[in-house]
């Protein structure tokens, strides 16, 4: 278990950098997390992040396909918003655990 200091708050994360306590998340922290991935968060990014957090709270297993059917972005846009592994990176920024799906 590691601790990440963002905006003076100590965030508990696992060894891969995923939040272990999603309640520690807020939008300002997301902005800082995204900067580390060279992503400037737009409104669209936040819509995706909130969608992921809601689904996580509802205990729905997340897949790229589900995000593509969310009505927020299609799969192509999702890859563009979070380049280099969209679901992994967006989950990290959204402060939820790493998704475990194979699809």
């Amino acid at each position, binding site marked *: 278990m590691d601790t990440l200091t963002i905006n003076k708050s100590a965030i508990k994360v696992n060894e891969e950098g995923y939040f272990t306590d999603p309640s520690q998340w807020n939008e300002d922290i997301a902005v800082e997390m995204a900067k580390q991935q060279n992503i400037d968060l737009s409104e669209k990014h936040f819509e995706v992040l909130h969608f992921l957090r809601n689904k996580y709270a509802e205990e729905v297993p997340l897949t*790229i396909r*589900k995000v*593509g059917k969310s009505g927020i972005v299609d*799969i192509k846009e999702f*890859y563009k918003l979070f380049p280099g592994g*969209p679901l*992994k990176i967006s989950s990290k920024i959204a402060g939820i655990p790493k998704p475990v799906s194979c*699809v």
Partner: protein
Amino acid sequence: MEVVKEMTANKVVAKEKKEVKKILVICARGTLEDVYAALIMANGALAEGKEAKMFFTFFGLDAITKKKADHLHTATVGNPAFMRGLPTMIGGLPGFEALASSMMKKEMDKLDIPPVTEFFEMIEAGGGEIYACKLAADMFHLKKEDFIPEVNDIITVGQMYELAEGEGTHMVFI
């Protein structure tokens, strides 16, 4: 760069850990389970931020043929792993293969595994590339218009190897 230690017969060798950057999946089979294996591996690579390219040859061409892509079947005959204890003859009964395939598809749908053509759309959206083998296409008298729109091109084996060029490429044959 991370260094991993590898145990060999009598000594420990330190090796540089090298990332997989690209995968080239070659699919030569047309059964549901083989095609899905190819699709899941390619799509999984894209989801991990890796490059993925796919090459379909021989019966694998069924997966990218408009008329057949969403109608692939699971092998109920000559597949000893399928329903162990069931005599092979039963697998050959009329309609059995279709029934088994539709049951398989239902189970996969529950896991959010999309139908074959939708899977190709996902792979294209993720930046993956899909190719058909020229020799096999000629053999089965298939042309570009017979293939799903996601197929980038019909290429030779030499061009297929060009797709694999670069550092950190892995090839998977199914």
